[in-house]
């Protein structure tokens, strides 16, 4: 990362450093890998977090002295999988979980997921839907961004990578409408790369046996992020003609 980065967010499971609109997300095992980010072992994460917390914010987050022990690039693309109809039904039922934050209810953004997925598949205009979704809803990564990222992942899991790429291309110009913390991961989703946590949810599409683990995982992501992502994934995956009927 060029220049002296600033500390965007010092979380207990993710450290976000930023320079302009670019970000480096350093995560521990507890969070999983994020596209373009780095994942380190818990003791190393704890040391780094402690060091960054002690720095004078005005001087930025100079981390020149830090040398990661091992750097292994990871492929975080979502590819087409065999989707099971019973798994889809189970996951869909889980997306009705409430998650209202004060006056803001993410179910409003979740309700747009199916229309967005259908429009993306059919090559229809998605501009208005994206304007309503990107940056909309509760959370520092707003619920609408989670829904859009979920639809992008669901389309790719359903083998509709061209539709996903075209939808991604429509998302990129709108990134300025959301938060810096969300921009990074929505940009990655628009170009086909997804965080470990998204992969964990996509894996739930494979069978009724794998769905409960994905539902449990979704419940642990933020106040409503996991469920919002899941709503998008289900909507994206459901429109493929190639859904396997459960045995």
């Amino acid at each position, binding site marked *: 990362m060029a220049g002296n980065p600033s500390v*965007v*967010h*010092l*979380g*207990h*499971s993710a450290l976000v450093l930023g320079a302009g609109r670019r970000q480096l997300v350093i995560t*521990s*095992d*507890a*969070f999983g890998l994020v596209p373009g980010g780095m994942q380190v072992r*818990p*003791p190393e*994460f*704890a*040391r780094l*977090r*402690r060091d960054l*917390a002690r720095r004078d914010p005005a001087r930025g987050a100079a981390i020149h002295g830090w040398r990661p022990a091992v750097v292994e690039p990871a492929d975080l693309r979502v590819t087409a999988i065999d989707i099971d109809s019973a798994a889809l039904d189970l996951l869909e039922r889980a997306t009705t979980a409430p*998650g209202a*934050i*004060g*006056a*803001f209810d993410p179910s*409003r953004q979740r309700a747009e997921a199916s229309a967005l997925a259908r429009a993306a598949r059919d090559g229809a205009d998605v501009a208005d839907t994206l*304007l*309503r*979704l*990107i*940056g*909309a*809803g*509760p*959370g*520092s*990564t*707003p619920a*609408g961004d989670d829904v859009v990222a979920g639809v992008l992942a669901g389309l790719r899991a359903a083998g509709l990578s061209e539709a996903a790429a075209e939808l991604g291309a429509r998302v990129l110009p709108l990134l*300025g*409408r*959301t*938060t*810096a*913390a969300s921009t990074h991961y929505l940009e990655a989703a628009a170009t086909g790369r997804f965080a470990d946590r998204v992969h964990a949810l996509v894996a739930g599409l494979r069978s009724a046996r794998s769905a*409960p*683990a994905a539902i*449990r*995982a979704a*419940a*642990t992501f*933020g*106040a*409503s*992020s996991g469920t919002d992502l899941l709503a998008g994934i289900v909507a994206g995956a459901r429109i493929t003609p190639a859904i396997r009927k459960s045995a």
Partner: protein
Amino acid sequence: MTSLNSRVFPRLYRDSVALMAIASSTEARDGVDRVGAVMATPANIAILDESAMLPTGLTAAPDDLVIVVRGDTDEIVAEALDAAEAALTSVESARRNEDRPAATIGEGIQAMAAEDSDRPATMAAISIPGTYAAVVAERALRDGLHVFCFSDNVPVEDEIRVKGLARERRLLHMGPDCGTAIIDGVPLGFANVVRRGTVGIVAASGTGAQEVSRLLDLAGAGISQLIGVGGRDLSAEVDGLMTDLALDLLEDDADTGVIAIVSKPPAGPVADRLLARLAAIAQKGTPTIACFLGAEDTDGEVTVRGTLEGGAIAAAAAAGHPLQVDAASGLPTTAPPGRVLGLYTGGTLASEAKLLLKRGGVTDAEVLDLGDDEYTAGKPHPMIDPEARATRIAAAGSDAGVGILLLDLVIGYGASPDPATPVVEAIGAARAAAAADGRELLVIGSVCGTPADPQGLDRQRGLLEGAGVVLTPTNAAAARLAATLHTTGARA
């Protein structure tokens, strides 16, 4: 006419869980109608506008956090915004000082590593809704931690999966639904303060293990380790996955000289395999006791006992501290007519009582395990909150069919700070109700505890004796006495 106002916090991020908590607590204030706590993106500004929640002149950027409050008066709204800001600041302050309790296994590991890197975390205790327990347990195991899982209602397939992972990594996964353990002298869950000794216990039963361990303490024997494995570990499905590992660890433990397994009857093939394993351990010189509730007592390479009391006596003898279970003096020789009603807080203690009543020829006894899911849905376990049982004890006085009331009282860590008092009050009410109807009620019980338990064993016993409860040294002795009085000593 209501008031609407907002406060903008430039470039401030808070995770959604913190924002939800702040929005909810602010919205709950008197006179506050609605609260919005969101990032000031164009889409959110539009939503605020549509909801008539956009104050005039609000200027903010997508990376700014905005809190909007609608309330009855300007003053109420200003106070609510102050409270929300204070809550945001307190989240920040807690994070800066790093004194926020860890909310995940990963955070816990990091917090301990940051505090003292020479003393890393070694065990995770999990007590969350069962649906999520396996995910957290897996996380802990992958981070190299042993697991004590108090959570119940964990699907059996999840249990098999996480125990398989634990075994692969040579880590303990105690539970799910693990009520008790004592590891290196540290009690986990419900546990009595038991002296250190040489008996290593593997337990698939919570109060069963407590009864055996407290009797070993009474004998002066003590325990080296008490490893809980969860009530399903010896089922055909789970196949003793964790019992096998626990036995490996106890075999390698220099402080363990005797090994005992405490369980309800295991599945047939599992029992056969386990007994063969215990025999092999005994052949190498470590005495082994299988305390399988309901099993026939046999003496061979493995000493098999069918009661908790029998298992404790055998283990104490093997450890060189014979246990004398003194017959209590002044026991009654007759009892009022009527059936035996057992109102238990300990599941295995209830099972032992049922077994011995049946063996004693009592066919009409009713023994309830009030800690069972059937009775605890949405309520604390009766070992923690004795009130639900007290209500049933009091009601028994109005039941003309009940002559003998059989009880347990479990003390120690995790249990109610004073379980005897509500029991004593309820017994008084029950006796008064029975007397008003011209009847009597005999109450028999035992206390599962040690002199070092925080509630005070003597005090708890004294309260019960003061209320006329006939106390026996063991739960088994209480059940036997009830059976004898019911079958031979019932007054006409």
